[in-house]
Every structure is written in structure tokens, then in C-alpha cells.
């Protein structure tokens, strides 16, 4: 993993899910691509800190997550808007995903629940990988993810009843 080629081979299969995950946080495809690029570079700069006994995907998604939140903070500082710095998709980017609905559903949950649901669904991470990404025990991943799903289900039910 100390060679760029090895790093690239480990990273390449993660990129489509990483892009979707980043998009779910930063709010536009363009910013998601920037975040993925930053994370790829930052990961390479910190490759000496990677512990090969731990899941690479979890380690790298922790970096990507930080890049996304850094980008959000910079956007929020640079401008104010109804979505706190999030851009709607540009008109020339047809997007089959109902981002408005997904964002709305996630925004009503706690930050912890949003975090774990994004890593699970958009990142496609397994429990061990989520544990590595969030630096929490595997048992906490299991219980937090379950509570997040219950909160999401309750939210959906409430909206259907309204």
C-alpha cells in the first residue's frame, strides 16, 4: 500500500460509492467529485498512518467524511442559503435520485443517525468498516444503526399519516 499503484488499486473500486456518499453530504455532484479528489490525495499523504490490520475502506471513508464536512464548513462560511451552503443539482445534470426527499428524511434525524445511515447505504460499508470510519466499537455500530433505522421508519410513518 506504500506504492501509488497499490493505493490506486485499493481505492478505485470504492470511487462510485464514495461519490454517491459525498454527494449525499455536500449536495452537488461537482462538490462531491472535489471531495473525493481531496480525500484521494489526503489518503495518499497519510498512507503511512494506515494500519493494514484494519479495513482500508473504513479508514479511507473516515478521510472522505472529513473532507466532505470541511467542504460544507467552507461553503457555509462563504455563503448563506436555505440549505446551509448546499447547491441544488445544476440543470445540465439530470439526476435520477430524489435528493430532495432523501435530504429531507435525513435532516430530521440526529447527526449520529445521519452519519451511520450515509455510511451504510451510500458508502456501502460493513459494520467493521463503519466502526473504523467512526472510531466506535462494532457493537455501537449495530445498536446505533438499528436506532437510526427505527427513527427513519418512524419519520416516514409520520409523513405518510400527515
Amino acid at each position, binding site marked *: 500500500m506504500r506504492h501509488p499503484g497499490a493505493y*490506486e488499486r485499493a481505492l478505485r473500486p470504492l470511487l462510485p460509492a464514495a461519490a454517491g456518499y459525498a*454527494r449525499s453530504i455536500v449536495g452537488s455532484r461537482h462538490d462531491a467529485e472535489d471531495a473525493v*479528489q481531496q480525500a484521494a490525495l489526503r489518503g*495518499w499523504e497519510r498512507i503511512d498512518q494506515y494500519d493494514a490490520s484494519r479495513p482500508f475502506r473504513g479508514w479511507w471513508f473516515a478521510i472522505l467524511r472529513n473532507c466532505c464536512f470541511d467542504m460544507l464548513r467552507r461553503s457555509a462560511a462563504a455563503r448563506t442559503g436555505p440549505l446551509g451552503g448546499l447547491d441544488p443539482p445544476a440543470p445540465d445534470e439530470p439526476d435520477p435520485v430524489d435528493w430532495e426527499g432523501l435530504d429531507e428524511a435525513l435532516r430530521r434525524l440526529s447527526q449520529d443517525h445521519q452519519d451511520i445511515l450515509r455510511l451504510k447505504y451510500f458508502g456501502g460499508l460493513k459494520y467493521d468498516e463503519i466502526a473504523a470510519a467512526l472510531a466506535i466499537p462494532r457493537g455501537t455500530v449495530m*445498536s446505533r*444503526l438499528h436506532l437510526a*433505522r427505527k427513527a427513519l421508519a418512524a419519520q416516514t410513518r409520520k409523513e405518510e399519516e400527515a
Partner: protein
Amino acid sequence: MNPVRPEELSALLDGELSDERDREVRMHIAENPALGDEFRLLEQLDAEWTAAARTAQFSPVARVRLKRPALSGFGAAALVLGLSVLRLSPKFIEPVGIAFGLQALGLVILLAFAATLTRPDRLAA
């Protein structure tokens, strides 16, 4: 059979239980309608979000240039070997044909090493 902890329903859904516990929890679900209802609700939610997340995936156009590490052990050895052969073969090797052959080999090693230095390392989906 141990009772089912609520979070084990999610873990079952995600395939994160051991084989033995997976079987036990499925038996509990089969015997307990309320547990079954809860599991099916989670399954439905999971199917919706999994489908949405899969649709959200895309290949980023980002291209990243990675910095090469310092000279690797193999590269250093190739450099030393190539230079040594180039420098020493005309002086100590007879006949001249073999010396030229070794010089050519040294040159090939150096060129191969140079190629590894100039090859771009790009990261793209």
C-alpha cells in the same frame, strides 16, 4: 435459545450475524408475529434506501496525480547496476563485443528505470 435483542434484527438484515445466531433469530421471527412485522418493516426501509443509494452512485471524473515515493529499493538497485555496468564493462571486460553487449544491457536497465520515473500515476474511476 437466547431472546432477540432489537439490534439483532438490523444485523440479520445486513448479514452481520454468525451463521448460528442467524438461524436462531430467524426461528424467533417465524414464531413471533410482532417480531416478524418489525423485521419486514426494516426490510422494506432497507430495500428503498439500498435502491436509492445504488442509483446515487456515479464515477467521479476527478483525476488525481499521486506523488511518487522516494527512490524504491528496486529502483536504487537498478540505477547502481546500470551505472556500474556502463562504467566498468569497457575497462575490464574482453573481448570488446562482450563489453559492448554489457554496456547495452546497462543502458536498457537505466532506460527501464527512467520509464518507471516518468510513468504518470493517475487515479480515476
